[in-house]
């Protein structure tokens, strides 16, 4: 299992557009990918669940990945939060 924390640097937070990209990214892997904010953890496959976490710019979240391809999935997720999110 891989767990990593990220600070959301995009001003609008994790809104609908980046959430869409993230869900699609997660679909490429067999590993179970979850997102945790505070005490709440949701699977990275539901717009409703991700949006209802109200993730804003400056918030800290954790990503939890578990499965066979967790290493490559973690790299993709890392790229998403450190590079791609800014442009979405």
């Amino acid at each position: 299992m891989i767990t990593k924390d990220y600070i959301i640097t995009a001003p609008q937070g994790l809104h609908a557009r980046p959430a869409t990209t993230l869900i699609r990214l997660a679909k490429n892997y067999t590993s179970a990918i979850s997102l945790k904010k505070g005490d709440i953890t949701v699977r990275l496959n539901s717009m409703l669940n991700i949006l209802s976490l109200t993730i804003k710019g400056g918030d800290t979240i954790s990503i939890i990945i578990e499965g066979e391809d967790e290493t490559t999935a973690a790299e993709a997720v890392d790229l998403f939060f450190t590079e791609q999110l800014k442009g979405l």
Partner: protein
Amino acid sequence: MIKGIGVSAGIAIGKAYIIKKSEAALTGFLLKNDAEVLADIARFDKAVGIAINEIENIKQNTSLALTDDAISILETQIEFLSDPQLRDDVVEKITTAKRNASDALIEVTAANVHLFESMEDEYLRARAIDIQDISNRILKYLNKSEQGHKQAFEPDTIIIAEDISPSDTITMDIKHVNGFATQAGSKTSHAAIIARSKGIPAIVGCGDGLTAIKNGDVIILDGAAGSLFISPDKQLTDDYTQKRTEYIARSNKLKQLKEVPAVTTDGTAVKLLANISSAVDMDDVFDNGGEGVGLLRTELLFMNRDSFPTEDEQFEFYRDIALRSMGKSIIVRTIDIGGDKQLSYFGLPAEQNPFLGYRAIRICLDRTDLFVTQLKAILRASVFGDLKIMFPMISNVQEVRAAKIILEQAKNELLQDNISFKANIEVGIMIEIPSAAITADILAKEVDFFSIGTNDLCQYTLAVDRMNEKISHLYDPFNPAVLRLINYVIDQARRHKIHVSMCGEMASDPMATLLLLGMGLTEFSMNAAAIPEIKQSIIHTYVSTAKDIYNKVMAMGSSQNIIRFLQEVTT
């Protein structure tokens, strides 16, 4: 007149067309057995599948000429439609409560819409309509009764609706739509985003007032002001027709200039920056082609409240601005209270000469507790963008050194608490007191940049209170004494290889642009709206011309001559 939230600027004049949405009603009939349960789950899955196909088709329909914004909204809708949580909830209602597929979806949607509508975050509240919209799409295929509207509108139509769903704005034939107004909605509704990206004036959140409008009523809609007029008289119509012409001309000019770099004809790059007071001003900065913020006033953060803002409150203020800065530099001026800016909760006694009194850095060096709090908040936000710190009202080198020591103290406190910040954050000072201007050579060794505040520099140099009407004619930024001070500051900054910018009113005066450029100034900070006009003068001039103007002006003895000369050469 009806007031709403202007979400897409521009003026539209046209005839009202009212879109009414029929609400899907619960049928109330229950499923009788497991076979019916399975059949309705299958019916739901099939309807979702058709709805997704429909969106894929819209996406691929090249004749719609969809913008990137529109396509990404459609992508998001597909994810909403295929949300496993939505399916789980609907299937749960079908299996355990024996609801038919349509009723199950209506109930689940109502709960989700309610959840999002009650959220604190404005953006998320606006997502309620997306959730309703995708539900309506599925329902359309569950019951054949619902009709989507794909209408062709008459020329010059203004659409009036309770709300407009994202798919409406995309599939509607908007060729003839001049504008739209809705009762509900907010600045972050997808409908608002689409309106902006297609350049259609729009107002949302107009409330019940819109119900007074009938089909065919003549409507004037001002998308910037957020106002709407029903059946206007001739005078008003003429006024707004005129305004519309001006708006189109101005926005075309702005658009042309926005992407044009501020470079002189002979290749000197000039930085045009903006003076701002809060995060919401950032949109204006970029819309006008600004390349960053040359002055962030922090007073707004301290005004209209009962007590000093906490470090966390201040941190959020600076962070929100940093997050919107697109990596451009932001110069944060530490608090400039006192003088004419008073805080009700900070009892400063009345002074004989408030402008020569206890204000700005003088308060900060005395009340170091307040100063450290602000510096820590700025430092913490510095990891989110290119923030720089600027001290106002510096009159001598000791003050700069004292302020820098307190900055180090703030950094140490953060280090001890293991909080990250930008360690080598740049530090600069305002040059607005004549003693600072005259000792620019000494001060330049202490800091990374200067910013010339011409308003106070002029008032202090000429001993003129510009609020005093009897002597306001003596307030004269083109006085040779003021110009010599400015010239000396720019020259010393260049000799010591530090940045120098100007953030006073002179920076936005087109009459002064060439003169300042001739002095060697290449960073100008002003109200965002003034940027295009200054850019216009810069891109049409040679630095050699500017140098020539500067040499002639510096040889003149009176500001009357200087002003007359500058008027001649700049028009």
